[in-house]
């Protein structure tokens, strides 16, 4: 089976090289009108089919590695180092991406899968798809070369004699979410290759109009969703497994996943400027180029050992490969951009200082500043070593101080952006639409201060004031989103006579993109509220004997027992703790500490009791060697559940935005007219216009 896998990779590489070369020749011949020995269209078709076949070959390689994992084939070095016989089947499956070579194979397979779908759907625009397919094949060649030359997953063990059992999977990866977190993250990273390929292809062929954006919109949104889910699953894994009470530690690997997310989010916003107003064309092209390159840079940072990370399982010497690929990509992008820059001239200009366009510009600024700040903090140790000769640590104190204000600015813009109309607005309209959110902001701040959130009385005043500002701004944003929904639903109710809930459903169906976007904004705000809860975290650590108790902010944990257990995969120490709030028992928690036999490593299994208000988070830190009693650490983490709820809302909103809107018949004109000043948020339309439009059955949003 290892030989089969290796052979599949070689054939996939040959097919991708063919796709690249034949596609390039065919497109060159078509664009210049040159005659080749065979028809250029025919050559282009063979290129596409070779690309399709490469997916089958990479799939065979991925299957071969998974098969080797399931059949305990320890003659394969990778399987020997990442599995063992006692490993449950689902972790044997996840062994595919638990190490360097396997994760690169997963990357190559996902890339081939995206390419497969792109090439199958080539009829959406045959020439543009051919450009995108050729560019994508260049990326595939790079990853397949890596797998064949630098990081072969099917290498046999030295000496050729297979040991009886493997060294086991890293205990930190033996957690259910780890089965889906890496594929989700990679689906996000790799997925940005598709809009990148379309953008570069559209620029190369001087594609007329904005159709490439319409084609790639769903690709970009789905990719963005995968990356969002991947990052959030990683946060949840860090929270539930690492046992330090937090979910985001600003580790370089975490930062690496966050960078393309930020630029991808900026692209999803600014691309609307291009669709609706024909502006920011060059900017958008660079945003998607940057997003793709940041995905590669993130991989370079975390696998090359350039920066120190706790995710050291994947470090190796393939940094040179990624650096070379990154430089080539940047040069190709730069050359194409400068060569075709006259094609990217804006069709419209900014008409008003205060408009949706301005808010998008500031939105992009904030997102890119956040990206720059995170990148700066991640790379500063390298710069410091170069300048001062010594590395420094850029830990949470740095990032929390510089990134949180940027996050607050983003919340602020999330609130005001959707309330501003395209092109221009009036002072009266601004006053009318911002009065409610402003009241909500001030009211929430006053209520919170009255309830005891008083930064001037706290030890950590900075964290508390950030939380206070975040809660207040969030209230403003939620008010503005809610009022947009209610006003829109009110119009539909007047028009149809249905109840408010049905009207709201109809409203969302008529403009899934706008209202899906509002749901996503709402989810982000809910997440921010959850993140702000960390300003009020509390913790306590105690060595506990039978019957001992630990008290924290009204909660009391009593140790009922502590014991040991074992199974073929690991031995475990755990304690049983009854949790009381006042005199009422609310739950029993059993934090564990496991010792994995194959890898000879320990791992914590945190016990969490979650409510909407707070999490009781209990860690079995180990046993005191002198008394043999467990050391228990208890955290009270407020509002953590809001983060996961927010993620759920974001996923829901993205699905809504992906659904095609329901349009009454005869609504789409053959030649759309440019936007008018009346095309604005519901809240901007004066009542007579709403009434007129409602009576004519027109959707406003």
């Amino acid at each position, binding site marked *: 089976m290892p030989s089969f896998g290796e052979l599949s990779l070689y054939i996939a590489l040959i097919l991708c090289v063919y796709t690249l070369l034949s596609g390039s020749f065919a497109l060159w011949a078509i664009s210049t009108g040159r005659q080749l020995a065979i028809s250029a269209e025919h050559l282009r078709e063979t290129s596409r089919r070779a690309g399709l076949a490469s997916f089958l070959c990479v799939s065979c390689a991925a299957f071969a590695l998974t098969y080797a994992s399931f059949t305990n084939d320890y003659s394969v070095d990778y399987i020997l180092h990442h599995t063992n016989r006692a490993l449950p089947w689902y972790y044997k499956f996840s062994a595919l991406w638990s190490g360097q070579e396997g994760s690169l194979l997963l990357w190559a397979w996902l890339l081939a899968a995206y390419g497969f779908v792109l090439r199958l759907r080539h009829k959406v625009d045959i020439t543009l798809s051919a450009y995108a397919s050729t560019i994508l094949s260049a990326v595939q060649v790079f990853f397949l070369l890596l797998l064949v030359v630098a990081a072969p997953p099917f290498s046999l063990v030295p000496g050729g004699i297979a040991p009886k059992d493997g060294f086991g999977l890293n205990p930190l990866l033996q957690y259910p979410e780890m089965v889906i977190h890496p594929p989700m993250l990679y689906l996000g990273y790799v997925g940005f290759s598709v809009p990148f390929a379309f953008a570069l292809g559209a620029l190369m062929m001087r594609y007329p109009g904005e159709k490439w954006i319409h084609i790639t919109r769903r690709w970009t949104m789905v990719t963005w969703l995968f990356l969002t889910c991947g990052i959030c699953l990683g946060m949840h894994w860090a929270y539930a497994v690492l046992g*330090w009470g937090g979910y985001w*530690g600003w*580790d370089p690997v975490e930062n690496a996943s966050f960078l393309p997310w930020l630029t991808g989010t900026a692209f999803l916003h600014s691309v609307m400027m291009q669709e*609706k107003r024909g502006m920011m064309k060059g900017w958008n092209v660079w945003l998607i180029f940057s997003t793709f390159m940041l995905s590669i840079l993130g991989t370079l940072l975390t696998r090359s050992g350039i920066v120190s990370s*706790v995710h050291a399982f994947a470090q190796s010497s393939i940094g040179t490969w990624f650096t070379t690929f990154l430089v080539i990509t940047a040069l190709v992008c730069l050359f194409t951009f400068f060569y075709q820059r006259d094609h990217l001239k804006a069709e419209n*200009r*900014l*008409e008003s*200082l205060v408009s949706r366009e301005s808010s998008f*510009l500031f939105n992009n*600024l904030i997102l*890119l*500043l956040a990206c*720059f700040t995170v990148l*700066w*903090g991640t790379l*500063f140790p390298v710069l410091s070593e170069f*300048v*001062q000769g*010594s590395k*420094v*640590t850029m*830990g949470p*104190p*740095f990032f929390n*101080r*510089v990134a949180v*204000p*940027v996050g607050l600015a983003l919340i602020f813009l999330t609130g005001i952006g959707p309330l501003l109309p395209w092109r*221009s607005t*009036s002072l*009266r309209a601004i006053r009318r639409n911002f009065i409610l959110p402003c009241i909500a902001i001030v009211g929430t701040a006053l209520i919170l201060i009255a309830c005891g959130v008083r930064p*001037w009385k706290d*030890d*950590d*005043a*900075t964290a508390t*004031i950030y939380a206070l500002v975040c809660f207040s701004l969030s209230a403003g944003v939620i008010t503005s989103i809610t009022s947009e929904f209610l006003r829109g639903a009110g119009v539909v109710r007047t028009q149809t006579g249905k109840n408010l809930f049905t009207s709201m459903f109809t409203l969302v169906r008529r*403009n899934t993109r*706008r209202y899906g976007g509002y749901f996503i904004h709402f989810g982000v705000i809910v997440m921010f509220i959850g993140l702000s809860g960390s300003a009020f975290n509390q913790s306590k650590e105690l060595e506990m004997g039978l019957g001992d108790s630990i008290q924290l902010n009204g909660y009391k944990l009593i140790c009922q027992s502590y014991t040991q257990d074992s199974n073929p995969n690991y031995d475990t120490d755990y304690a049983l703790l009854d949790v009381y709030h006042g005199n009422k028992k609310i739950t029993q928690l059993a934090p564990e500490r496991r010792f994995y036999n194959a890898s000879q490593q320990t791992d*914590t299994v945190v016990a969490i009791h979650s409510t909407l208000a707070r999490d009781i988070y209990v860690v079995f*830190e*180990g046993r005191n060697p002198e008394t043999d009693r467990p050391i228990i*650490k208890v955290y009270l983490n407020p509002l953590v559940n809001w983060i996961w709820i927010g993620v759920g809302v974001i996923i829901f909103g993205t699905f809504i935005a992906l659904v095609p809107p329901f349009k009454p018949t005869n*609504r789409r004109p053959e030649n*759309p*007219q440019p*936007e*008018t000043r*009346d*095309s604005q948020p519901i809240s901007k339309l*004066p009542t*007579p*216009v709403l009434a*007129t*439009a409602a009576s*004519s059955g*027109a*959707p406003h*949003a």
Partner: protein
Amino acid sequence: MLKRSLQIFFVCFAAFTMMAADNSTTRLDHIGHKLVCQCGCGQILMECNHVGCPVSGPMIDTLRTQLAAGQSEGAILDSFIAKYGPIVLAAPIRGGFDNVAWIVPYASFLLGTLGVAFLIRFWHRRYNRLNPASALPIPPATPNPMRDRIRRDTDYLD
């Protein structure tokens, strides 16, 4: 009035953000959160959760001893830097080139904001120069069948 209010707001904000814990009971926690455990876990010293960690325990003990001896925060941090190197600090706070780490994000935020504001103003002026009619005040939207029709026809673009 608005200017004065903004000044007061910024002074209050700066005062809040610069407030530091001065209580002796919290000094251990405060300084301990400025240091990183050197066992390789990469965690903040006071948050290192490895029982029997050969590094964090002795580091916290040293910190306690130095606090009990009445040493200043600067002296304590200097002693840790002398022993473990600057990597022991959770954030670069030694001054000199370390300041660059803090200045650059804020400077880029300021420059970026000014740059975008300038760009918007520049585009707006150019638009007004090229379209003098558009510089006139925008009339309030009124019910107009033609405009309603245009809006309906372009709604799907939203």
